[in-house]
């Protein structure tokens, strides 16, 4: 459809005229757009909160994650999360207060849920969203194990992932202005 600033689909115009009791009636929600089905929302509803809300059913082990990582991640992030051409994922714990801080998943990220959310939405770079839910749990588990946060025989799922306490969990100070947002309306 070409970009036309004043284009409006005709069925809506007819509907609006039929329903409006006066020419200046305020618009209602379904004068614009339509109601999505629950199944449709689920397709796009990919965010994961720190309390685990949004995590899908599934699980993955550190061992399987190594396989997933080597097939999809190591080309950019290095063989074991270090030395790649893109972001370093491993190490740096204890470096944050030095003149050469190294920010990685292990040293800096406050929530393990963010790792799942980010891998699912953005990785692998060339084909985001192509890892299965199980593979995403697995590769998250592997990256956490490389950082010494999970043992080599660990397995993650929607119950265990939010319970992981990241080393830098208490490393963040919310800006005073936005630390306590009250309902405005």
């Amino acid at each position: 459809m070409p970009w036309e600033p004043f284009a409006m689909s005709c069925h809506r115009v007819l509907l609006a005229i039929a329903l409006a009791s006066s020419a200046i009636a305020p618009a209602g929600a379904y004068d614009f757009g339509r109601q999505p089905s629950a199944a449709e929302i689920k397709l796009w509803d990919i965010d994961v909160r720190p309390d685990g809300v949004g995590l899908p059913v599934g699980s993955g082990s550190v061992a399987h994650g190594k396989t997933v990582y080597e097939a999809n991640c190591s080309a950019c992030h290095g063989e074991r999360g270090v030395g790649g051409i893109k972001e370093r994922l491993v190490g740096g714990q204890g470096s944050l207060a030095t003149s050469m801080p190294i920010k990685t998943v292990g040293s800096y990220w406050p929530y393990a849920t963010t790792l799942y959310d980010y891998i699912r939405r953005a990785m692998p770079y060339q084909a985001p969203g192509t890892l299965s839910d199980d593979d995403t749990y697995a590769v998250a588990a592997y990256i956490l194990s490389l950082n010494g946060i999970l043992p080599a025989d660990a397995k993650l799922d929607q119950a265990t992932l939010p319970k992981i306490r990241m080393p830098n969990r208490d490393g963040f100070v919310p800006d005073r202005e936005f630390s306590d947002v009250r309902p405005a309306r």
Partner: protein
Amino acid sequence: MAMTGDGMPGVTDRRSLSRRALLSGVAAGVAGSMAAGPAAAETLADVPPREPGADLGSTSPRSKYVSIGRVPEAGPTVRNVDPANAINSKTPLDKLVGQITPADLHYERSHSGAPDLNPAEHRLLVHGMVGKPLVLSVDDLKAMPSVSRIAFIECTGNGWENWKKADETLSVQNTHGLVSTNEWTGVRLKYLIELVGKQARSTWMLAEGGDAAGVARSIPLTEEILEEAIIAYGQNGEPLRPAHGFPMRLLVPGMEGNVNIKWLRRLKFGDQPWMTRWETARYTQLLANGKARQFQLRMETNSVITSPSGTMTICPGYNRITGLAWSGHGRIAKVEISTDGAKSWNAAQLNAPVLPKAQTRFQMDWVWDGKPTKIVSRSVDETGSVQPDRDAFIALTGNNALFHYNAQQTWSIDAMGAVRNVLS
């Protein structure tokens, strides 16, 4: 005001100046702002005769005599990169006049390139803590009541070249080119919120892009943001450029660039932040003690002299100093300029219109005595927020923060008139 061949006001090439000064015998400094480009017409007889011009076209290209463009860069100190490795592209502040940035020169930052989305296939899902979730098309948005707002957008990392040291070869495009001002047109967030019936308990909104990375940020629903945020589809009077979020983006005036989600495809209402990668691992400011400031969303009071600035050369005598000031708090109230290395300050003239959360052009006349010196600007906004000097700023933040740099920018000028980037 004369323009040199590349569209840069006020500062000229020393060789053409010297030649002109010798020829005309006038004071070098006055000639400095009047000299033309290399093929200058020395007398009116040299000006080419008038002739019929180009045929009319569907768009108007820039003059072939104007050389102006952004510069793609990677992280701090990583310049002159292959565009495939660039993460941002900086606005040529040294070559712009006025306060509005041309749309194609607005700075660009993306996390997985700029998708060129077909508006017919693009949808915005609005859901979460709402009474009536909605799927909206671009046409739906364009059919709603619209507003326009002139506002700056500034990358959270603007200024990051100077956190630890100053590379004296940098231009103002390198040091400050991640801020631009455009007019944005679209629908108020508040209007959408009323349409979907946001629950009163919802205090945060997740905004997510339709780019490959699905960049997502949690936005606090303060009164200010509810009043001012826009779902924009227009930029300087035309549809958004793909680099800036076509066909729709979020505009949160005054807040860090990253929350102004481009290629917007989802708004989800909730009661707590989601702690996405960009608001935890990325746009957080590491302090000297190893703790990091989080959700420092507001872009602070800032200013920079754009001419004379790094890599330019000036001549003794009259020089007009000009630059840009902006604040995420509101309007710029005052800009002061020091031409003696921050010992004494003089008020600059502010060019109208002075708009809230938009870049404001300032200028001041100056006669340079030819002795080495340093020039620097500082701004104050209508809330009384003052742009800090570098030492005070670093004392507060340390120099690991990487983002939200708003210290005063100092340019040194040597006896030859060469202008260089320095820390203070």
